[in-house]
Protein backbone atom coordinates (compact mmCIF):
# COMPACT_ATOMS: atom_id res chain seq x y z
CA UNK A 1 0.00 0.00 0.00
CA UNK A 2 1.23 3.49 -0.72
CA UNK A 3 -0.26 6.85 0.16
CA UNK A 4 -3.72 5.51 0.93
CA UNK A 5 -5.93 8.03 2.66
CA UNK A 6 -9.66 7.64 3.08
CA UNK A 7 -12.29 8.68 5.55
CA UNK A 8 -15.75 7.17 5.95
CA UNK A 9 -18.57 9.13 7.52
CA UNK A 10 -21.20 7.72 9.91
CA UNK A 11 -24.03 5.98 8.10
CA UNK A 12 -22.15 6.05 4.81
CA UNK A 13 -21.51 3.14 2.47
CA UNK A 14 -17.98 3.60 1.17
CA UNK A 15 -16.79 1.37 -1.64
CA UNK A 16 -13.23 0.22 -2.20
CA UNK A 17 -12.96 -0.87 -5.81
CA UNK A 18 -10.02 -2.55 -7.41
CA UNK A 19 -8.79 -5.57 -9.33
CA UNK A 20 -7.43 -8.64 -7.59
CA UNK A 21 -4.08 -7.68 -6.08
CA UNK A 22 -4.82 -3.95 -6.00
CA UNK A 23 -4.53 -3.83 -2.22
CA UNK A 24 -8.18 -3.99 -1.15
CA UNK A 25 -7.83 -6.85 1.30
CA UNK A 26 -4.61 -5.44 2.75
CA UNK A 27 -6.50 -2.21 3.39
CA UNK A 28 -9.28 -4.14 5.12
CA UNK A 29 -6.82 -6.08 7.25
CA UNK A 30 -5.17 -2.86 8.43
CA UNK A 31 -8.53 -1.38 9.41
CA UNK A 32 -9.51 -4.61 11.18
CA UNK A 33 -6.24 -4.62 13.12
CA UNK A 34 -4.91 -7.77 11.48
CA UNK A 35 -1.98 -5.88 9.93
CA UNK A 36 0.07 -2.94 11.05
CA UNK A 37 0.86 -0.20 8.53
CA UNK A 38 4.58 0.53 8.28
CA UNK A 39 3.79 4.21 8.74
CA UNK A 40 0.64 6.28 9.01
CA UNK A 41 -2.43 5.85 11.15
CA UNK A 42 -5.67 3.92 11.10
CA UNK A 43 -8.58 4.97 13.29
CA UNK A 44 -11.97 3.32 13.75
CA UNK A 45 -14.36 5.55 15.69
CA UNK A 46 -11.27 7.42 16.84
CA UNK A 47 -9.53 4.28 18.12
CA UNK A 48 -6.39 2.51 16.99
CA UNK A 49 -7.42 -1.02 15.95
CA UNK A 50 -4.01 -2.47 16.88
CA UNK A 51 -3.61 -0.92 20.30
CA UNK A 52 -7.24 -0.49 21.37
CA UNK A 53 -8.49 -3.71 19.88
CA UNK A 54 -10.80 -4.55 22.77
CA UNK A 55 -12.86 -1.41 22.23
CA UNK A 56 -12.70 -1.53 18.43
CA UNK A 57 -13.91 -5.11 18.23
CA UNK A 58 -17.01 -4.31 20.24
CA UNK A 59 -18.23 -2.03 17.49
CA UNK A 60 -16.60 -3.42 14.36
CA UNK A 61 -18.14 -6.25 12.34
CA UNK A 62 -15.91 -7.86 9.77
CA UNK A 63 -16.65 -10.27 6.96
CA UNK A 64 -13.28 -11.40 5.70
CA UNK A 65 -12.84 -12.50 2.10
CA UNK A 66 -11.05 -15.69 3.11
CA UNK A 67 -11.97 -17.04 6.48
CA UNK A 68 -13.52 -20.22 7.69
CA UNK A 69 -15.51 -21.21 10.68
CA UNK A 70 -15.79 -24.26 12.90
CA UNK A 71 -16.86 -26.67 10.16
CA UNK A 72 -18.56 -29.23 12.39
CA UNK A 73 -20.84 -26.65 14.02
CA UNK A 74 -24.30 -25.94 12.65
CA UNK A 75 -25.43 -22.53 11.48
CA UNK A 76 -27.41 -21.99 14.70
CA UNK A 77 -24.48 -23.11 16.87
CA UNK A 78 -22.14 -20.70 15.09
CA UNK A 79 -24.60 -17.86 15.63
CA UNK A 80 -24.80 -18.68 19.33
CA UNK A 81 -21.02 -18.86 19.64
CA UNK A 82 -20.31 -15.52 17.97
CA UNK A 83 -23.25 -13.82 19.66
CA UNK A 84 -21.80 -14.81 23.02
CA UNK A 85 -18.82 -12.49 22.44
CA UNK A 86 -20.99 -9.35 22.53
CA UNK A 87 -22.97 -7.70 25.32
CA UNK A 88 -26.15 -7.02 23.32
CA UNK A 89 -26.19 -9.35 20.33
CA UNK A 90 -28.81 -9.62 17.62
CA UNK A 91 -31.09 -12.65 18.25
CA UNK A 92 -29.85 -15.73 16.39
CA UNK A 93 -33.15 -16.29 14.58
CA UNK A 94 -33.13 -12.72 13.30
CA UNK A 95 -29.56 -13.05 12.04
CA UNK A 96 -30.36 -16.30 10.26
CA UNK A 97 -33.51 -14.86 8.71
CA UNK A 98 -31.69 -11.74 7.51
CA UNK A 99 -29.34 -13.83 5.39
CA UNK A 100 -32.03 -16.29 4.31
CA UNK A 101 -30.69 -19.43 5.96
CA UNK A 102 -33.65 -20.42 8.13
CA UNK A 103 -33.95 -23.82 6.49
CA UNK A 104 -30.23 -24.48 6.99
CA UNK A 105 -30.08 -23.54 10.68
CA UNK A 106 -29.34 -27.13 11.72
CA UNK A 107 -26.91 -27.82 8.87
CA UNK A 108 -23.22 -28.06 9.63
CA UNK A 109 -21.15 -25.21 8.19
CA UNK A 110 -18.90 -27.65 6.29
CA UNK A 111 -21.96 -29.01 4.43
CA UNK A 112 -23.18 -25.63 3.18
CA UNK A 113 -22.53 -24.39 -0.35
CA UNK A 114 -19.94 -21.65 -0.85
CA UNK A 115 -22.64 -19.02 -1.14
CA UNK A 116 -24.38 -20.19 2.00
CA UNK A 117 -21.08 -20.16 3.90
CA UNK A 118 -20.57 -16.60 2.70
CA UNK A 119 -23.97 -15.65 4.08
CA UNK A 120 -23.18 -17.21 7.46
CA UNK A 121 -19.98 -15.18 7.56
CA UNK A 122 -21.93 -11.99 6.87
CA UNK A 123 -24.51 -12.81 9.54
CA UNK A 124 -21.71 -13.31 12.07
CA UNK A 125 -20.26 -9.91 11.17
CA UNK A 126 -23.57 -8.40 12.25
CA UNK A 127 -23.98 -10.42 15.45
CA UNK A 128 -22.73 -7.71 17.83
CA UNK A 129 -24.82 -4.83 16.40
CA UNK A 130 -21.69 -3.19 14.95
CA UNK A 131 -21.46 0.53 14.27
CA UNK A 132 -18.93 -0.07 11.54
CA UNK A 133 -19.05 -3.03 9.17
CA UNK A 134 -16.39 -4.16 6.74
CA UNK A 135 -17.62 -6.42 3.97
CA UNK A 136 -14.84 -7.89 1.85
CA UNK A 137 -16.20 -9.24 -1.45
CA UNK A 138 -19.75 -9.33 -0.14
CA UNK A 139 -21.42 -11.28 -2.90
CA UNK A 140 -18.63 -13.18 -4.62
CA UNK A 141 -19.93 -16.60 -5.61
CA UNK A 142 -23.57 -15.84 -4.85
CA UNK A 143 -26.49 -16.26 -7.22
CA UNK A 144 -28.44 -13.15 -8.32
CA UNK A 145 -31.25 -13.71 -5.81
CA UNK A 146 -28.85 -14.03 -2.89
CA UNK A 147 -26.96 -10.96 -4.08
CA UNK A 148 -30.15 -8.90 -4.13
CA UNK A 149 -31.00 -10.07 -0.63
CA UNK A 150 -27.59 -9.00 0.66
CA UNK A 151 -27.81 -5.68 -1.13
CA UNK A 152 -31.06 -5.05 0.74
CA UNK A 153 -29.25 -5.97 3.94
CA UNK A 154 -26.57 -3.36 3.27
CA UNK A 155 -29.23 -0.76 2.49
CA UNK A 156 -30.92 -1.62 5.76
CA UNK A 157 -27.63 -1.14 7.59
CA UNK A 158 -27.20 2.28 6.04
CA UNK A 159 -30.75 3.20 7.06
CA UNK A 160 -29.88 2.11 10.60
CA UNK A 161 -26.91 4.47 10.64
CA UNK A 162 -24.25 1.79 10.34
CA UNK A 163 -21.06 2.78 8.56
CA UNK A 164 -20.17 0.29 5.84
CA UNK A 165 -16.88 -0.23 4.07
CA UNK A 166 -17.69 -2.37 1.06
CA UNK A 167 -14.72 -3.93 -0.67
CA UNK A 168 -15.54 -5.30 -4.07
CA UNK A 169 -14.57 -5.79 -7.64
CA UNK A 170 -18.23 -6.09 -8.69
CA UNK A 171 -19.05 -2.86 -10.54
CA UNK A 172 -22.81 -3.21 -10.39
CA UNK A 173 -22.66 -3.79 -6.64
CA UNK A 174 -20.49 -0.77 -5.97
CA UNK A 175 -22.58 1.39 -8.26
CA UNK A 176 -25.81 0.25 -6.63
CA UNK A 177 -24.80 0.44 -2.99
CA UNK A 178 -22.02 2.95 -2.44
CA UNK A 179 -22.45 6.61 -1.58
CA UNK A 180 -18.79 7.20 -2.36
CA UNK A 181 -15.91 5.04 -3.43
CA UNK A 182 -12.19 4.96 -3.90
CA UNK A 183 -10.55 3.12 -6.77
CA UNK A 184 -7.34 1.30 -5.89
CA UNK A 185 -4.69 0.35 -8.39
CA UNK A 186 -1.26 -1.12 -7.58
CA UNK A 187 -1.75 -0.21 -3.92
CA UNK A 188 -2.65 3.45 -4.52
CA UNK A 189 -5.85 5.47 -4.67
CA UNK A 190 -6.27 6.61 -8.26
CA UNK A 191 -9.79 8.03 -8.02
CA UNK A 192 -12.33 8.95 -5.37
CA UNK A 193 -15.83 10.39 -5.28
CA UNK A 194 -19.39 9.30 -5.90
CA UNK A 195 -19.91 6.81 -8.72
CA UNK A 196 -21.39 9.67 -10.75
CA UNK A 197 -18.42 11.96 -10.09
CA UNK A 198 -15.99 9.28 -11.20
CA UNK A 199 -17.81 8.52 -14.42
CA UNK A 200 -18.13 12.26 -15.11
CA UNK A 201 -14.46 12.88 -14.43
CA UNK A 202 -13.47 10.12 -16.83
CA UNK A 203 -16.19 11.04 -19.34
CA UNK A 204 -17.37 7.47 -19.49
CA UNK A 205 -20.93 6.08 -19.49
CA UNK A 206 -20.39 3.52 -16.69
CA UNK A 207 -18.16 2.67 -13.77
CA UNK A 208 -16.77 -0.25 -15.71
CA UNK A 209 -15.68 2.07 -18.53
CA UNK A 210 -14.35 4.50 -15.96
CA UNK A 211 -12.22 1.80 -14.38
CA UNK A 212 -10.88 0.83 -17.79
CA UNK A 213 -10.06 4.47 -18.54
CA UNK A 214 -8.33 4.92 -15.19
CA UNK A 215 -6.28 1.73 -15.12
CA UNK A 216 -6.04 0.70 -18.76
CA UNK A 217 -7.43 -2.75 -18.09
CA UNK A 218 -10.47 -4.71 -17.09
CA UNK A 219 -11.23 -5.16 -13.40
CA UNK A 220 -11.12 -8.96 -13.72
CA UNK A 221 -7.47 -8.84 -14.74
CA UNK A 222 -5.12 -9.42 -11.82
CA UNK A 223 -3.16 -6.42 -10.60
CA UNK A 224 0.26 -7.84 -9.88
CA UNK A 225 2.29 -4.65 -10.16
CA UNK A 226 4.10 -3.55 -7.00
CA UNK A 227 3.13 -0.25 -5.42
CA UNK A 228 5.43 2.64 -6.31
CA UNK A 229 6.93 4.39 -3.32
CA UNK A 230 6.21 8.07 -3.10
CA UNK A 231 8.62 10.49 -1.47
CA UNK A 232 5.89 11.82 0.78
CA UNK A 233 4.61 9.27 3.30
CA UNK A 234 0.93 9.72 3.90
CA UNK A 235 -1.57 8.19 6.28
CA UNK A 236 -1.17 4.50 5.62
CA UNK A 237 1.56 2.56 3.86
Amino acid at each position, binding site marked *: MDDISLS*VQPGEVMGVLGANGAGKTTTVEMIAGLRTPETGTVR*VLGLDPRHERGAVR*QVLGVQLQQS*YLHGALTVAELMDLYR*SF*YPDPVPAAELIDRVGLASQRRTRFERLSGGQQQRVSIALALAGRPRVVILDELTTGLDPRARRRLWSLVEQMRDDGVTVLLVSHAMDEVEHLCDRLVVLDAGRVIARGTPGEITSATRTPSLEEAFLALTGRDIDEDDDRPAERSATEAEAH
Partner: protein
Amino acid sequence: MTTDIVPTPTARRPGPKSWLALVGAEAKMVTRDTSGLIIPLGLPLLILVMSAAPASQEVIVNGRTALDLFVLPLVLTVIIATIGIINMPSFLAYYRRSGILRRLAVTPASPAMVLVAQVVVSLLQAVLGMILALAVAFWGFGANPPAHLWAGVGIFLLALAAMYALGMMVAAVAPTPNSAVAIGLVLFFAFGALGGLFGGVQMLPEALAPLADWLPFGAAVQALGSAWAGVALELTHLISLVTTTVVGTGVAIWLFRWE
Protein backbone atom coordinates in the same frame (compact mmCIF):
# COMPACT_ATOMS: atom_id res chain seq x y z
CA MET B 1 -7.25 6.02 6.41
CA THR B 2 -9.48 7.57 9.04
CA THR B 3 -12.97 6.84 10.26
CA ASP B 4 -14.27 9.01 13.06
CA ILE B 5 -17.62 8.76 14.79
CA VAL B 6 -18.54 9.77 18.34
CA PRO B 7 -19.07 8.58 21.04
CA THR B 8 -15.94 6.56 21.55
CA PRO B 9 -16.58 2.90 22.43
CA THR B 10 -15.00 1.23 25.42
CA ALA B 11 -13.34 -2.16 25.69
CA ARG B 12 -15.34 -4.96 27.31
CA ARG B 13 -13.91 -8.41 27.84
CA PRO B 14 -16.12 -11.38 26.98
CA GLY B 15 -17.67 -12.81 30.15
CA PRO B 16 -18.21 -16.36 31.46
CA LYS B 17 -20.99 -16.94 28.92
CA SER B 18 -18.51 -16.43 26.08
CA TRP B 19 -15.99 -18.77 27.69
CA LEU B 20 -18.64 -21.44 28.16
CA ALA B 21 -19.89 -21.03 24.60
CA LEU B 22 -16.36 -21.45 23.24
CA VAL B 23 -15.72 -24.51 25.42
CA GLY B 24 -19.05 -25.96 24.25
CA ALA B 25 -18.14 -25.31 20.62
CA GLU B 26 -14.74 -26.97 21.07
CA ALA B 27 -16.36 -29.96 22.75
CA LYS B 28 -18.78 -30.38 19.84
CA MET B 29 -15.92 -30.15 17.36
CA VAL B 30 -13.96 -32.84 19.19
CA THR B 31 -16.86 -35.23 19.70
CA ARG B 32 -17.94 -34.89 16.07
CA ASP B 33 -14.42 -35.84 14.95
CA THR B 34 -14.76 -39.47 16.01
CA SER B 35 -11.49 -40.57 14.41
CA GLY B 36 -9.64 -38.13 16.66
CA LEU B 37 -10.99 -39.93 19.72
CA ILE B 38 -9.80 -43.41 18.73
CA ILE B 39 -6.06 -43.01 19.40
CA PRO B 40 -6.20 -41.26 22.80
CA LEU B 41 -8.92 -43.56 24.12
CA GLY B 42 -8.35 -46.77 22.13
CA LEU B 43 -4.53 -47.10 22.14
CA PRO B 44 -4.12 -46.91 25.93
CA LEU B 45 -6.96 -49.41 26.41
CA LEU B 46 -5.26 -51.75 23.94
CA ILE B 47 -1.94 -51.49 25.85
CA LEU B 48 -3.82 -52.13 29.08
CA VAL B 49 -5.75 -55.14 27.89
CA MET B 50 -2.69 -56.72 26.25
CA SER B 51 -0.50 -56.34 29.35
CA ALA B 52 -2.89 -56.46 32.29
CA ALA B 53 -3.53 -60.18 32.68
CA PRO B 54 0.06 -61.36 33.25
CA ALA B 55 1.05 -58.17 35.08
CA SER B 56 -1.77 -58.45 37.59
CA GLN B 57 -0.44 -61.78 38.91
CA GLU B 58 2.95 -60.52 40.02
CA VAL B 59 3.06 -58.71 43.41
CA ILE B 60 6.07 -56.35 43.60
CA VAL B 61 5.78 -54.18 46.74
CA ASN B 62 3.17 -53.10 49.28
CA GLY B 63 0.64 -55.53 47.75
CA ARG B 64 0.92 -53.68 44.43
CA THR B 65 1.36 -55.71 41.26
CA ALA B 66 3.24 -55.01 38.04
CA LEU B 67 -0.11 -53.87 36.64
CA ASP B 68 -0.29 -51.16 39.31
CA LEU B 69 3.34 -50.11 39.25
CA PHE B 70 4.21 -50.25 35.56
CA VAL B 71 1.20 -50.80 33.29
CA LEU B 72 -1.28 -48.30 34.75
CA PRO B 73 1.27 -45.45 35.02
CA LEU B 74 2.28 -46.11 31.42
CA VAL B 75 -1.36 -46.24 30.23
CA LEU B 76 -2.27 -42.99 32.01
CA THR B 77 0.79 -41.26 30.61
CA VAL B 78 -0.04 -42.46 27.09
CA ILE B 79 -3.55 -41.03 27.44
CA ILE B 80 -2.41 -37.56 28.45
CA ALA B 81 0.52 -37.56 26.02
CA THR B 82 -1.58 -38.49 22.97
CA ILE B 83 -4.23 -35.92 23.82
CA GLY B 84 -1.78 -33.21 24.88
CA ILE B 85 0.98 -33.64 22.31
CA ILE B 86 -0.87 -35.00 19.26
CA ASN B 87 -4.59 -34.20 19.35
CA MET B 88 -4.74 -30.71 20.79
CA PRO B 89 -2.00 -29.17 18.62
CA SER B 90 -3.51 -30.63 15.46
CA PHE B 91 -6.83 -28.96 16.29
CA LEU B 92 -5.19 -25.61 16.94
CA ALA B 93 -3.04 -25.87 13.81
CA TYR B 94 -6.16 -26.71 11.81
CA TYR B 95 -7.89 -23.66 13.25
CA ARG B 96 -5.01 -21.43 12.31
CA ARG B 97 -4.57 -22.95 8.83
CA SER B 98 -8.26 -22.83 8.00
CA GLY B 99 -8.65 -19.21 9.10
CA ILE B 100 -10.83 -19.89 12.15
CA LEU B 101 -8.37 -18.16 14.47
CA ARG B 102 -8.14 -15.28 12.02
CA ARG B 103 -11.92 -14.95 12.03
CA LEU B 104 -12.00 -15.02 15.82
CA ALA B 105 -9.22 -12.40 15.88
CA VAL B 106 -11.65 -9.78 14.58
CA THR B 107 -14.13 -10.44 17.39
CA PRO B 108 -13.75 -9.57 21.08
CA ALA B 109 -12.55 -13.16 21.68
CA SER B 110 -8.89 -13.35 22.65
CA PRO B 111 -6.19 -15.91 21.82
CA ALA B 112 -6.28 -16.98 25.46
CA MET B 113 -9.95 -17.92 25.14
CA VAL B 114 -9.29 -20.27 22.24
CA LEU B 115 -6.32 -21.86 23.95
CA VAL B 116 -8.10 -22.26 27.28
CA ALA B 117 -11.21 -23.72 25.64
CA GLN B 118 -9.08 -26.26 23.81
CA VAL B 119 -7.21 -27.13 27.03
CA VAL B 120 -10.47 -27.56 28.95
CA VAL B 121 -11.93 -29.87 26.32
CA SER B 122 -8.70 -31.84 26.11
CA LEU B 123 -8.72 -32.10 29.88
CA LEU B 124 -12.21 -33.56 29.77
CA GLN B 125 -11.00 -36.05 27.17
CA ALA B 126 -8.07 -37.00 29.40
CA VAL B 127 -10.36 -37.47 32.40
CA LEU B 128 -12.70 -39.61 30.32
CA GLY B 129 -9.76 -41.70 29.11
CA MET B 130 -8.47 -42.07 32.66
CA ILE B 131 -11.86 -43.16 33.98
CA LEU B 132 -12.20 -45.70 31.17
CA ALA B 133 -8.71 -47.12 31.77
CA LEU B 134 -9.09 -47.27 35.55
CA ALA B 135 -12.53 -48.85 35.27
CA VAL B 136 -11.19 -51.59 33.01
CA ALA B 137 -8.11 -52.09 35.22
CA PHE B 138 -10.00 -52.19 38.55
CA TRP B 139 -13.03 -54.20 37.51
CA GLY B 140 -11.50 -56.27 34.75
CA PHE B 141 -8.09 -57.09 36.21
CA GLY B 142 -8.29 -56.38 39.97
CA ALA B 143 -5.93 -53.40 39.96
CA ASN B 144 -5.20 -51.54 43.23
CA PRO B 145 -5.35 -47.81 43.93
CA PRO B 146 -2.10 -45.88 44.52
CA ALA B 147 -0.64 -46.39 47.98
CA HIS B 148 -0.19 -42.62 48.09
CA LEU B 149 -3.45 -41.59 46.45
CA TRP B 150 -3.05 -37.82 46.63
CA ALA B 151 0.53 -37.98 45.45
CA GLY B 152 -0.79 -39.97 42.48
CA VAL B 153 -3.43 -37.34 41.76
CA GLY B 154 -0.86 -34.55 42.06
CA ILE B 155 1.60 -36.29 39.73
CA PHE B 156 -1.17 -36.99 37.22
CA LEU B 157 -2.12 -33.30 37.14
CA LEU B 158 1.50 -32.18 36.91
CA ALA B 159 2.17 -34.64 34.08
CA LEU B 160 -0.98 -33.40 32.37
CA ALA B 161 0.28 -29.83 32.61
CA ALA B 162 3.66 -30.86 31.19
CA MET B 163 2.17 -32.73 28.23
CA TYR B 164 -0.22 -29.89 27.46
CA ALA B 165 2.59 -27.36 27.65
CA LEU B 166 4.48 -29.45 25.10
CA GLY B 167 1.35 -29.62 22.96
CA MET B 168 0.85 -25.86 23.15
CA MET B 169 4.42 -25.42 22.03
CA VAL B 170 3.80 -27.72 19.06
CA ALA B 171 0.60 -25.80 18.23
CA ALA B 172 2.50 -22.52 18.35
CA VAL B 173 5.24 -23.57 15.91
CA ALA B 174 3.44 -25.97 13.54
CA PRO B 175 2.41 -24.20 10.33
CA THR B 176 -0.12 -26.82 9.19
CA PRO B 177 -2.33 -29.49 10.78
CA ASN B 178 -0.25 -32.21 9.13
CA SER B 179 2.98 -30.78 10.46
CA ALA B 180 1.39 -30.52 13.92
CA VAL B 181 0.51 -34.21 13.81
CA ALA B 182 3.99 -35.05 12.49
CA ILE B 183 5.80 -33.02 15.16
CA GLY B 184 3.45 -34.38 17.81
CA LEU B 185 4.02 -37.99 16.74
CA VAL B 186 7.81 -37.54 16.66
CA LEU B 187 7.78 -36.02 20.14
CA PHE B 188 5.38 -38.66 21.46
CA PHE B 189 7.38 -41.61 20.17
CA ALA B 190 10.76 -40.06 21.00
CA PHE B 191 9.78 -39.22 24.56
CA GLY B 192 7.81 -42.45 24.82
CA ALA B 193 10.69 -44.63 23.63
CA LEU B 194 13.05 -42.90 26.03
CA GLY B 195 10.48 -43.17 28.79
CA GLY B 196 9.75 -46.87 28.72
CA LEU B 197 6.90 -47.08 26.21
CA PHE B 198 8.50 -50.07 24.47
CA GLY B 199 9.39 -52.57 27.15
CA GLY B 200 10.19 -50.40 30.13
CA VAL B 201 13.06 -48.13 31.11
CA GLN B 202 15.27 -51.12 32.01
CA MET B 203 15.34 -52.07 28.31
CA LEU B 204 17.03 -48.81 27.31
CA PRO B 205 20.77 -48.78 26.45
CA GLU B 206 22.88 -47.69 29.41
CA ALA B 207 23.80 -44.38 27.79
CA LEU B 208 20.14 -43.44 27.23
CA ALA B 209 18.68 -44.70 30.50
CA PRO B 210 19.25 -41.43 32.45
CA LEU B 211 17.11 -39.59 29.90
CA ALA B 212 14.08 -41.48 31.17
CA ASP B 213 14.39 -39.56 34.43
CA TRP B 214 14.78 -36.17 32.81
CA LEU B 215 12.31 -36.28 29.92
CA PRO B 216 8.62 -35.72 30.74
CA PHE B 217 7.21 -39.05 29.54
CA GLY B 218 9.61 -41.21 31.56
CA ALA B 219 9.41 -38.85 34.52
CA ALA B 220 5.61 -39.11 34.53
CA VAL B 221 5.58 -42.92 34.28
CA GLN B 222 8.14 -43.36 37.03
CA ALA B 223 6.63 -40.74 39.35
CA LEU B 224 3.18 -42.31 38.98
CA GLY B 225 4.76 -45.71 39.67
CA SER B 226 6.30 -44.31 42.87
CA ALA B 227 2.93 -42.97 44.02
CA TRP B 228 1.35 -46.37 43.35
CA ALA B 229 4.12 -48.18 45.23
CA GLY B 230 3.95 -45.77 48.13
CA VAL B 231 7.64 -44.86 47.97
CA ALA B 232 9.21 -41.42 48.02
CA LEU B 233 9.02 -39.43 44.77
CA GLU B 234 12.31 -38.68 43.05
CA LEU B 235 13.13 -35.00 42.83
CA THR B 236 14.49 -35.45 39.29
CA HIS B 237 11.04 -36.47 38.03
CA LEU B 238 9.35 -33.49 39.61
CA ILE B 239 11.97 -31.10 38.25
CA SER B 240 11.51 -32.59 34.77
CA LEU B 241 7.73 -32.17 34.80
CA VAL B 242 7.78 -28.66 36.29
CA THR B 243 10.49 -27.49 33.89
CA THR B 244 8.60 -28.89 30.89
CA THR B 245 5.43 -27.12 32.04
CA VAL B 246 7.11 -23.76 32.56
CA VAL B 247 9.28 -23.80 29.43
CA GLY B 248 6.54 -25.21 27.18
CA THR B 249 3.97 -22.69 28.36
CA GLY B 250 6.40 -19.81 28.04
CA VAL B 251 7.46 -20.76 24.52
CA ALA B 252 3.82 -21.28 23.47
CA ILE B 253 2.78 -17.85 24.74
CA TRP B 254 5.79 -16.29 23.07
CA LEU B 255 5.34 -17.93 19.69
CA PHE B 256 1.58 -18.34 19.36
CA ARG B 257 0.11 -16.47 16.41
CA TRP B 258 -3.32 -16.14 14.81
CA GLU B 259 -2.07 -16.82 11.28
